[in-house]
């Protein structure tokens, strides 16, 4: 008798729940799919479903998942109404999951979607979203490589005049005539910084000239690894110029890794030793103006160069010559006049032409109401 009563109660509750759900128009989420998230390392599955109709009474969604043959478990928090997808990042690789999206009504009534097919997270070897970027990189690299090897045939490569680099010989000559040293500051970058590597290649060219003129070259370093590389580079430059005896290892030294302590140290060297020429080449931050203004105050000829666009105005204001952005990277080729290096500059210019062409085309298309290039760039993002 008791059992019958219990059954009637359970049936009543079920009927009431279903009745409430139907009275609210609470329908189960439709078109629920679960698939491996594209372009990731296989650590997530994306679940998508159709948006509920307006006035459906749905206040949120709860994602449930099940490992094959296992129990249903809730994943994440209750998602707000209007959500149409969920990325489950708490999965184990190699495990297959099936999902159910549970719609939760305003009166806490719930209705479940159909269970999705099995889905497993797999890592992709290539990020398809980066295809345009990859193609652009390949094209640009090919242009540079083609120009580099074309330059080996002996074709003369025109390089526009860069005043900052034209002045290098003059600056070194001035220091030699005055009998003073040259101070070369590599900035704050580590050896992995491209600007620092570019600066080191300029230093190699400067060292060749100072070796010839036997002018002291002082290089205070911010990074011990950079210091060791620079020592080796300058030593080789002196050896190759036939003046190994003029090389003094003590002139290339570690100062400190701290930004402002480094600035204070370099300023101190400038004020005490009064170098005739100061090179500020590499990666700089807030200390750029502190260094450049001190160099200016001692009357040194200053040649600066950086790819930090925020520091460029300071260098332009305080230094005699400034290599702006890409000129820093062109300096090595410009100073060495090596055909293969000069060839790479032409390749770089091809890249610029390509970009300017794309910008002009994008503007024209956008004005004509065709957003192809904008869409492409947004996809790359």
């Amino acid at each position, binding site marked *: 008798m008791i059992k019958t009563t219990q059954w009637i109660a359970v049936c009543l509750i079920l009927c009431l729940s279903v009745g409430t759900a139907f009275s609210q128009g609470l329908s189960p989420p439709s078109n629920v799919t679960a698939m491996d998230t594209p372009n990731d*390392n*296989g650590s997530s599955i994306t679940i998508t479903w159709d948006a509920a109709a307006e006035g459906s009474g749905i206040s949120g969604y709860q994602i449930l998942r099940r490992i094959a043959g296992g129990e249903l478990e809730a994943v994440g928090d209750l998602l707000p109404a209007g959500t149409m997808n969920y990325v489950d990042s708490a999965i184990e690789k190699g495990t297959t999951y099936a999902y159910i999206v549970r719609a939760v009504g305003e009166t806490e009534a719930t209705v479940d979607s159909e269970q999705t097919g099995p889905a497993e997270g797999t*890592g*992709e*070897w*290539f*990020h398809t979203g*980066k295809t345009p970027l*990859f193609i652009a*990189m390949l094209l*640009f*690299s090919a242009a*540079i*490589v083609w120009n*580099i090897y074309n330059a080996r045939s002996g074709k003369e490569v025109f390089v526009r005049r860069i005043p900052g680099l034209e002045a290098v010989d003059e600056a070194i000559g001035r220091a030699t005539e005055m009998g003073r040293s040259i101070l070369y500051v590599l900035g704050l970058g580590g050896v992995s910084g*491209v600007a620092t*590597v*570019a600066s*080191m290649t300029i230093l*190699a*060219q400067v060292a060749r000239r100072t070796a010839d003129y036997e002018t002291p070259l002082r290089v205070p370093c911010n*990074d*011990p*690894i950079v*210091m060791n590389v620079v020592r080796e*580079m300058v*030593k*080789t*430059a002196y050896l*190759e110029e036939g003046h190994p005896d003029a090389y003094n290892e*003590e002139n290339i*030294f*570690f100062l400190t*890794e*701290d930004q402002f*302590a480094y*600035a204070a140290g370099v300023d101190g060297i400038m004020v*005490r030793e009064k170098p005739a020429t100061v090179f500020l080449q590499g990666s700089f931050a807030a*200390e750029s*103006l*502190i260094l450049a*203004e001190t160099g200016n105050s001692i009357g040194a000829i200053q040649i600066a160069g950086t*790819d930090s*666009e925020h520091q460029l*105005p*300071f260098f332009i*204001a*305080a230094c005699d010559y400034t290599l702006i*952005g*890409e000129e*820093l*990277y062109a300096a*090595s080729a410009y100073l060495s006049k090596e055909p*293969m*290096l000069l060839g*790479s500059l032409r390749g*770089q210019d091809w*890249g*610029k032409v390509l*970009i300017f062409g794309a910008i002009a085309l994008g503007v024209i298309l956008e004005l004509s109401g065709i957003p192809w290039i904008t869409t492409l760039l947004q996809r790359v993002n």
Partner: protein
Amino acid sequence: MKRQVPLVLCFLFGVVMCFTQFSPHSFSQSIYDEVVYWALIMSPFALAVGTITLIQTHVIRIRRRTEHWQYSFVVFAGLLTMVAIGLPFGPQHPAFAWLFNNVQVPLDATMFSLLAFLIASAAFRAFRARTFEASLLLISAMIVLIGNVPVGDLIWNTVLSWLPWDNGASEARQWILGNPNLSARRGIILGVSLGVISQAIRLILGIERSYIGGGD
């Protein structure tokens, strides 16, 4: 051999690290993480090299009695004090933290605050209206300076109230920063990006080899 091995390693790591940027697979990401981890391992060794060089430099300064050689003792005093407290007790020790917060931080702040005066002296030189370009720079700078302070708009709205635009100072500042300034910056950034790729290709292909001592 001394040159070939670094060049081959540079090529291999350059190409592999480049492709890890296009491959989200856990294998390629683990290679990337591993190589970055190797770079981190080098830091303690670099610190040791740096400390030894620093000591050598200042010992030489003291021995040769170069100008202001006495200050080298301050370097040793600072170095020894921080090592004596930091090594046995760690950087969380109150004495270590006190020295850091009350010596290094104010010294750094002092150097940083010098910028305010240096900007003024550099601006004075840069803004001398001797050429057309310098005059343009001066006018733009004045507009940006005035547009940056609230009184700028007050002056505009009071003195130039007959003009149809309100808050013209801040609007003009915004236009200068958002149009000519931003365009120039983006142009520089594009050039820098291409320069970086070009430099990287030269390094990877071993065409630029002065960083390993130059030569063939």
